[in-house]
């Protein structure tokens, strides 16, 4: 098995979502796992696939920030101080079955990667099954908790929620699974506190500068691949050319898609 990886330049919301949808098709065509690592330019809020547009309009903390709706589920994320990935696997892949498989695989790999750097995190689990009350429907992803979220535990906190530093959500298509995820690197200084959550740099000290991110992610990808013996294939250049992405990006930029709910 192979794991194909593209390191993409930052792009706007519609282009990133379009590229990720194409990534799902790529995983199906190649019959193996594909990942895209990328950033956002400009700072963008991504809404979960089913979140209400009215909820976004009511959040004054994100007023004026460009907004895109993801095809995947989950809560809203203010992108700009995070590292975003998309991972796609065919449903025949060992991680293509139940949603928790791919979710836990990628988060557990990051837990071990951070552990190697002296940062203790944990995969959050609800105290009672099914979801505990704290997994509710907060607007922002990093205010929610669901099983497998990567958290930095806070010994002084009695509620066990910890600080969520990595969350992911999926779009499950007919033959593939597309998973979006975000690793929060530091607080976003460009948005009010309500939309700015503490990241690794804030919680674990100064070892997570911009220069340290690429080696961290490379080590994470190696841990992901190593978990089930995949051979990493680092693909040169951008994932797709502008022409391929643009047509699909128009769909994600449309009012109809953005305010569908």
């Amino acid at each position, binding site marked *: 098995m192979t794991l194909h990886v593209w390191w993409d330049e930052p792009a706007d919301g519609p282009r990133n979502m379009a590229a990720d949808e194409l990534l799902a098709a790529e995983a199906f065509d190649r019959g193996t796992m594909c990942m895209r690592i990328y950033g956002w330019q400009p700072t963008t809020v991504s809404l*979960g*696939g*089913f979140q209400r547009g009215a909820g976004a309009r009511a959040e004054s903390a994100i007023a004026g920030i460009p907004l895109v709706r993801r*095809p*995947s*589920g*989950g809560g809203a994320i203010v992108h700009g101080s995070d590292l975003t990935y998309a991972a796609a696997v065919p449903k025949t*892949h*060992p*991680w*293509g*079955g*139940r*949603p*928790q*498989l791919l*979710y836990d695989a990628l988060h557990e790999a990051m837990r071990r990667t951070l552990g190697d750097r002296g940062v203790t995190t944990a995969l959050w689990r609800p105290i009672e099954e*099914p*979801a505990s009350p704290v*997994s509710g*429907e907060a607007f922002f992803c990093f205010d929610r908790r*669901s*099983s*497998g979220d990567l958290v930095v535990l806070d010994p002084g906190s009695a509620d066990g929620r910890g600080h969520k530093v990595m969350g*992911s*959500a*999926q*779009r*499950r*298509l*007919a033959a593939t*699974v597309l998973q979006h995820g975000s690793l929060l690197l530091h607080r976003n200084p460009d948005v009010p506190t309500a939309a700015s959550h503490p990241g690794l740099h804030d919680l674990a000290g100064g070892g997570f500068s911009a220069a340290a991110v690429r080696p961290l992610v490379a080590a994470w990808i190696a841990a992901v691949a190593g978990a089930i013996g995949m051979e990493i294939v680092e693909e040169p250049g951008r994932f797709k050319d502008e022409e391929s992405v643009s047509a699909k990006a128009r769909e994600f930029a449309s009012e109809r898609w953005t305010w569908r709910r």
Partner: protein
Amino acid sequence: MAAAMKFAKSHEWVRPEDNGLVTIGISAYAVEALTDLVFMQLPEVGRRVKAGESLGEIESVKAVSDVYAPVSGEVVEVNTALPGALETLGRDPYGSGWLVRVRPDDLAELASLLDQPAYDALVKSQPH
């Protein structure tokens, strides 16, 4: 479960009714695999669907999943109570957890779907 029930590889079930319609839902395996369903969007009555097209969407805590039409035809009835009572899907996926009723264009499409033993084998082969 009715003997005539057929399944799509994408985990929808379809059951022919005596009045020529087919009832469509999602399998117990799919419901259990998704866990913690939070929202469902179903089509409107009158919508035409083709086999393999998205018929609606389900959101769980972690995932948005498409529900695919196992046959082509016209949606003639929608279980409008379901989105407000998603627990029904877990409790009775092959009964009161039905999603839509469709007037099929061609019942022969059912022949390409899986019967119960074949679907059970598919589920057994899924990654756990």
